[in-house]
Structures are given as C-alpha cells and as structure tokens.
C-alpha cells in the first residue's frame, strides 16, 4: 500500500484584518481626543504661617476697572505705562509688592490682561516683581473694616 506524503501547510498568523482594526482604533482616538489647553498663569497662595501684612501705602496698588481701565496708585495709566511705573517703584524698593484689585463688574479677561502684563516684568523691564497679591473682595472688606473704613 502506498502512503501518500502529507502536504506541509505553513503555519501563519492571519493579518489581513489588522489594517481594518487599526483604522477603527484610529477613528476612535481621533474623535474622542481633544486638543485641550494645558497651560496658564500660575500663582501660589501664601500659607497662614507666612502671610505678610501688606499695607496699601507700602505697595503698588493696581486697580482694574470695567472696560479694562487701569488705575495705579489712584492714577489712570494705560496698559503700556504699567510696567515702566512699576519699574520706577521697584528701583526705590525691589521688594515692593503689587496688589492687583479688580472691580466685580470688570471681566475676567480684563484682570488676566493686567496680570499677564505684570508677569512679563522680567522680560520687559528686566526686574522681578517678588510678590503679586490678588486679594478677594472679602479680604479687602475685612481689611477696610479693620481699618475702620466704610
């Protein structure tokens, strides 16, 4: 009796559908991934133990009002004039803090515009503002009531 030789079937992994699966996954990732903003302005809040008492007269008072109007130490200043004024004050006292106050009816964008300008001090005036304080309305009112100002 003749025995037939077995045919050798090469073993292989079927990869024909791999491209389809990849396309499916790529479409899923493209649809669900979002290019979200992951950068912004940072600031650290002082801890209770090291909170310095900043008096208005010992600081540079920047007041942002409705429409982005800025007053620095009760004088109207355009945004371009803010850092030169701060530079003058920092030359007299490099540790002088800046208090950034914003009116409730101004917009967040107005406040950010000024805060961003102050943060650019090292590049624009070659000086660093060591402290930028952003007091909240409650903190300002508490301070006023402590000082007896209505």
């Amino acid at each position, binding site marked *: 009796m003749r025995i037939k030789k077995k045919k050798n079937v090469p073993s292989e992994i079927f990869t024909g559908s*791999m*491209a389809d699966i*990849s*396309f499916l*996954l*790529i479409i899923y*990732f*493209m649809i*669900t*991934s*979002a290019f*979200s*903003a*992951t*950068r*912004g*302005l*940072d*600031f*650290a*809040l002082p*801890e*209770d133990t090291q909170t310095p008492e900043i008096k208005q007269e010992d600081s540079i008072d920047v007041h*942002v009002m409705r429409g982005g109007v800025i007053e620095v130490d009760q004088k109207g200043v355009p945004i371009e004039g803010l850092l030169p004024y701060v530079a003058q004050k920092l030359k007299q006292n490099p540790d002088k803090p800046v208090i950034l106050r*914003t*009116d*409730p*009816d*101004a*917009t*967040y*964008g*107005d*406040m*950010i*515009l000024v*805060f*961003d300008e102050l*943060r*650019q001090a090292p590049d624009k005036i070659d000086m660093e503002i060591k402290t930028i304080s*952003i007091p*909240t*309305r*409650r*903190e300002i009112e508490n301070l006023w009531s402590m000082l007896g100002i209505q």
Partner: protein
Amino acid sequence: MALFRGRERKTAAQIFTASMADIVFLLLVFFILTYKVEVDRTKMNLPDTWVRIKVPEKAAVVSIAPPDSDPPLTIRVSTGEEMSLPVSTDEEVVTFASTEVARNPNKEFIIKADDSVPYERVDAVLDALKQSKVKYIFLLSDQKTVDE
C-alpha cells in the same frame, strides 16, 4: 521592418497601498501616546496670555461657563480624574476644595473661565479656594499671538 507588431500588454492602474498599514500604525501610536481625557468639556473662549506655565496633570478643575451659555455662569468641579460635575453654590466649591486639600494638602487647582465672565464670579471661586487653604492655583489660558 517587422510586419507584425506584438500586442501591447495592458497594465492595470493601481494605487500602491502596501505602506498604508504602516502609516496607520504610526498615527495610531501617536494618538495613543498623546491621548488625554478632558475632564471638563465646557466650551469657552479662554483669555490669551504671553506667559503660560504647564499645568500639572491630575490637578483639580473649577470651570466657570460663559454668560451666554445655557444655563449661564455654571460652575463645574472636577478632581482631575473624573468628569466635571455642576455645583450650585459657592459653599459647594468650598466643600469640594476642602475635601481635595484634606486628601492632598499640595493639590493644585485650575480655574478655567471664559474671558467674558464677570470678575465677581471668579472672585467668589478664588475666595472659596483660599478658604479651603489651597496653595497652588493655575489660571488656564490660550497662547497670545502678535496680531491680537
């Protein structure tokens, strides 16, 4: 001169697709590596700034929707690991932030607000975070460009 010309062979037009799988894999790897779940999907126009610091991953998020959204000026909070949820009062922001700070005293917080939001709302959120003893706050922004 040859009297009989040989029949011209017809070559079927085709697009070479052998490298398509490689390109698709490359794109797939890119998307897998850069994929991030956005915990807050509130549509808004962020303020533009020149100074932009990278915000830490897994930072908690407090978002304030624009005044023209529906409902307007909604505040949403997220731990940074779960999708954001709306809160109705400033006290709820204090409770949320206090819980997060109790878990991790150095927890960073991101304020994500539309640039047209009245500062009063941002002030209330800032105050809530200060009351909760938050140490680090990031104000999310877009890149400012020369023509703006």
